[in-house]
């Protein structure tokens, strides 16, 4: 970065604290200034990530020339300020304030989970007088149930307002509030209802005492008994930094870690409470081989590996009979090893990790680390086809850093209402599957109304050819929105100081996904946002290591870092087709569960059943694993060292927090041993060895130039007919019962029962009422679900969430479609 583009430096202020001179940026408060020179000014209500409150009065200090004591949290430094933090007056104030706080505090430390990491406990030990003069009975405030995640213990509450501020300032949903006033002030929810899951767990991290605590963690361990290891969350693509707290080899809780480049300490409730799938009794702990009677039998690793090796030797001569299926949930090391194994050891190009997509050119659209922080700087953000809060929850909080300051406007383009709609400047409710029509309409509006981007020339003509001679009104109609809406959104985006775009993985993985990427790129270029520093155009990928699988070349058309391969192998759908045609002999599935995750579940199941020999390596005996001939127990991230790559392409380190369960083994290790068995060693036998090999593969690789303007054909909406008059589309929820989430203790209970959303006009026409069981029928099958009648979904369309293994929308899927046609039946089957 050149010197000119650097942000102007903040002027510095010099002050004296307890005789020490301190220099800090203007605007710093006295607590932070003191912290810089190692002076600990005590506080209980202040939190460096929230606006100061000033209620606990523990941080009062003497400031020269000011007659009263001042709250250090609320006092901003000034040049020449002289601060004293240890005078008798200050000390007696601290002791006095603590005596007050303890007056009604139950002092039930022996039974309080917070004991040992309680800020109040620490401050009392440091600053309090030894004896209490309290004789009056303590005030008791009745508690009530806040739901499955959080326990409220109001008597311990010291009214610091941190939890209220987290919900107000960070999450933007003030559902937790002060009630009453004076000495009976309490923190409560409306009508004492449950604390709505979503981001509620963040209140636990900021609570200085044991007033709001994790219900699943309650009474599980003392803080000092826990072994604490920094790691990364495995439950979505954001890669939130967290600490894994383990006791007796069980992961008992996670605590957000403040990495400002990623999550800054905040977590979503999926991450905060979903970690304990690693403790599940259903974890696989031993290799298993399916015997002739169809039953699995536990075997030793030697036996399992020998069996697999013998089968692999059979296909070594015709490697195209081998295929490998990786996963967006596998670590970089496992993905890399799978790729190396498939291409180098077996010599097959049949490798993929995706559930149906056939996109190419990943490196061209790969985001750069730093995109998350850049996103915060945008004043306009377009969300195209992504329910951000559900798919990458903490990204929602990243946007809110600016949204809550009213420094950002968000346009939500989604057929279905999303949680962010409440904060959105505009909602473009387009027809499901019509993202490209929408983007083309926006592009046309920018060309018509906006300042034309420079140097467009012939490529601009190419873009316009993609409009197919349609007017803006016609393009808007194809997208299912109005011309006015398009013009307003285009004007906002083109007029932004810095505009960024987030687009959904579902749309990008669709059959026309390559065009979607081009259309996003066109819009950013035409609106003049592309070249700006800090501009982000990022795919909202949905799994822990989606980018890792792509980077490592778990793809049929390219190797690690986009390396060219001799010949393109089979993509997942093609593998299944080949299997059904009897052309696959061995299928090695590492970490994915296509039987419920592939768009057409029926096809996946039939294909896997058609393969002679199937190996599945996973944490659980998934639907896919049940079809395997050999099942190998894998290791979750909490139990391994390694790396994962998050939504912005940042590679983050995993540190083993606990020992692998039973005989389970990391995927790369299994493959290394198999390779050894086959006489073609992979060249690594440690994680560091894998990482070294990975580095080699990436050395000298150039980041491809970003694309220019391209012609993108405007698609027609999917067809419906009299038999199947409704469009069926799908998407993720924040809590569901997908392969991993269902194995945690609390998440399945947070997921709503599987449902189908129907627009009120359709519901009225069909006579469907809220809560009624209805059948959703496509040419492929029928799914019985609970009806939700809501305007959240467009008329003529129904929504069914993905992520339910017991009611998989994949059972309805027709191959070769992205949006299905269906009908609703009220009659029982």
């Amino acid at each position, binding site marked *: 970065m050149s010197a000119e583009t650097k942000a102007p430096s903040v002027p510095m202020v010099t002050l004296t604290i307890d005789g020490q001179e301190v220099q800090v940026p203007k605007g710093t408060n006295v607590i932070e200034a003191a912290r810089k020179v190692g002076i600990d000014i005590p506080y209980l209500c202040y939190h460096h990530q929230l606006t100061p409150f000033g209620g606990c009065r523990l941080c009062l200090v003497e400031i020269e020339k000011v007659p009263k004591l001042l709250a250090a949290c609320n006092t901003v430094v000034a040049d020449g300020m002289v601060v004293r933090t240890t005078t008798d007056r200050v000390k007696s104030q601290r002791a006095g304030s603590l005596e007050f706080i303890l007056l009604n505090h139950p002092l039930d430390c022996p039974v309080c989970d917070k004991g040992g990491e309680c800020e109040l406990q620490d401050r009392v030990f440091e600053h309090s007088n030894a004896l209490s003069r309290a004789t009056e009975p303590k005030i008791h405030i009745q508690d009530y149930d806040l739901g499955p995640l959080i326990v409220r213990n109001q008597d311990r509450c010291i009214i610091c307002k941190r939890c209220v501020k987290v919900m107000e300032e960070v999450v933007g949903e*003030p559902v937790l509030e002060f009630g009453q006033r004076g000495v009976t002030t309490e923190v409560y929810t409306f009508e004492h209802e449950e604390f709505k899951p979503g981001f509620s767990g963040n209140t636990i991290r900021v609570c200085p005492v044991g007033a709001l605590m994790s219900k699943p963690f309650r009474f599980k361990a003392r803080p000092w008994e826990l072994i604490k290891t920094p790691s990364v969350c495995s439950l979505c693509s954001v890669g939130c930094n967290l600490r894994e707290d383990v006791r007796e080899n069980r992961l008992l809780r996670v605590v957000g870690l403040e990495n400002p480049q990623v999550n800054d300490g905040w977590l979503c409730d999926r991450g905060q409470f979903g970690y304990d799938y690693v403790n599940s009794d259903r974890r696989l702990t031993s290799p298993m081989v399916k015997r002739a009677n169809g039953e699995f039998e536990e075997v030793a690793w030697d036996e399992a590996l020998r069996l697999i090796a013998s089968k692999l030797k059979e296909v070594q001569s015709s490697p195209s009979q081998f295929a490998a299926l990786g996963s967006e949930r596998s670590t970089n090391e496992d993905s890399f090893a799978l790729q190396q194994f498939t291409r180098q050891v077996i010599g097959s190009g049949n490798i993929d990790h995706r559930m149906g997509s056939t996109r190419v050119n990943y490196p061209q659209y790969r985001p750069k680390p730093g995109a998350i922080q850049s996103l915060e700087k945008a004043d306009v953000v377009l969300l195209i086809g992504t329910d951000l809060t559900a798919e990458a929850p903490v990204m929602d909080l990243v946007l809110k850093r600016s949204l809550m300051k009213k420094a950002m406007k968000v346009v939500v383009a989604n057929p279905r209402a999303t949680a962010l709609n409440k904060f959105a400047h505009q909602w473009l409710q387009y027809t499901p599957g019509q993202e490209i029509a929408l983007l083309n309409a926006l592009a046309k509006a920018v060309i018509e109304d906006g300042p034309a981007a420079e140097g467009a020339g012939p490529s601009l003509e190419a873009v316009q050819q993609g409009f197919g001679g349609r007017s803006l009104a016609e393009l808007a109609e194809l997208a299912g929105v109005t011309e006015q809406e398009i013009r307003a959104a285009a004007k906002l985006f083109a007029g932004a100081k810095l505009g960024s775009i987030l687009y959904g993985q579902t749309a990008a993985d669709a059959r026309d996904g390559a065009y979607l990427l081009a259309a996003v790129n066109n819009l950013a270029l035409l609106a003049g946002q592309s070249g700006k520093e800090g501009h982000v155009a990022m795919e909202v990928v949905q799994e822990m290591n989606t980018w890792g699988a792509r980077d490592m070349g778990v793809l049929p058309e390219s190797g690690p870092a986009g390396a060219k391969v001799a010949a393109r192998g089979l993509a997942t759908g093609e593998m299944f087709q080949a299997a059904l045609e009897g052309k696959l002999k061995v299928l090695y599935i590492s970490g994915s569960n296509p039987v419920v995750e592939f768009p057409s579940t029926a096809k996946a199941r039939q294909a896997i059943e058609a393969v002679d020999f199937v190996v599945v390596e996973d944490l659980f005996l998934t639907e896919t694993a049940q079809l395997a001939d050999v099942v190998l127990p894998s290791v979750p991230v909490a139990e391994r060292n390694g790396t994962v790559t998050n939504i912005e392409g940042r590679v983050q380190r995993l540190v083993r927090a606990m020992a692998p369960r039973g005989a389970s083994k990391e995927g790369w290790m299994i493959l290394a041993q198999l390779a050894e068995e086959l006489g073609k060693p992979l060249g690594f036998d440690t994680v560091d060895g894998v990482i070294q090999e990975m580095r080699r593969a990436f050395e000298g690789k150039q980041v491809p130039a970003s694309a220019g303007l391209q012609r993108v054909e405007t698609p027609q909406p999917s067809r419906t007919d009299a038999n199947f008059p409704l469009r069926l589309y799908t998407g993720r929820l924040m809590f569901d019962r997908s392969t991993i989430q269902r194995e945690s203790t609390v998440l399945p209970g947070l997921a709503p029962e599987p449902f189908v959303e129907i627009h009120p006009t359709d519901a009225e026409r069909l006579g469907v009422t809220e809560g009624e069981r209805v059948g959703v029928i496509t040419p492929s099958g029928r799914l019985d679900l609970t009806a939700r009648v809501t305007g959240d979904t467009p008329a003529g369309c129904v929504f069914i969430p993905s992520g339910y293994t017991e009611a998989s929308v994949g059972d309805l899927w027709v191959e070769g479609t992205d949006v299905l046609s269906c009908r609703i039946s009220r009659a029982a089957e």
Partner: protein
Amino acid sequence: MLSEQAKDAIREQMARYPCSRSALGAALYIAQEECGGWVPHEAVKDVAEVMGLEPADVQSMMSFYVMYNKEPIGKYLIEICHNVSCALLGAQKLIHVVEDKCGIHPGETSEDGMFTLKGVECLAACGGAPCLQVNGHFHFNVTPEQMSKMIDQLRAEGGPDRSLYNAAYVPEKTCRIQNG
């Protein structure tokens, strides 16, 4: 729960202020008048919806102020000041009179739903101590005998309604100027 009329009145209040949230106080008065002198949860929800707020937020604000009643109250709200000047000049005796005649203690509502008694802090009428309000209407220098008679009278002939107690004014609405 709230009528469209009440919701419109809330919207009218929202339009008065540079920031619409300022109308929350008035909105709760409107709800209280509409709901028989108190603000049930359902009304809180309605107010929150009309004003685009979280119900918890509205409830929290409401719980701070004593003039929003969180429980049903009687037809006549008798608020007797028991601060220093009134206490010195016999407020306690007045409270006893109401306790005896209506069978209620401060904070309670009589079984027939006629009276709610509250001991309140200084009503800014110490010159007329002991003083009290009935549905917001002042009575000064009240003697126990007068108190007793007042109860009888309220029972027999009735008294002022709560409309002024819960009033939300828009006197300036005819002459709004721009650029507040």
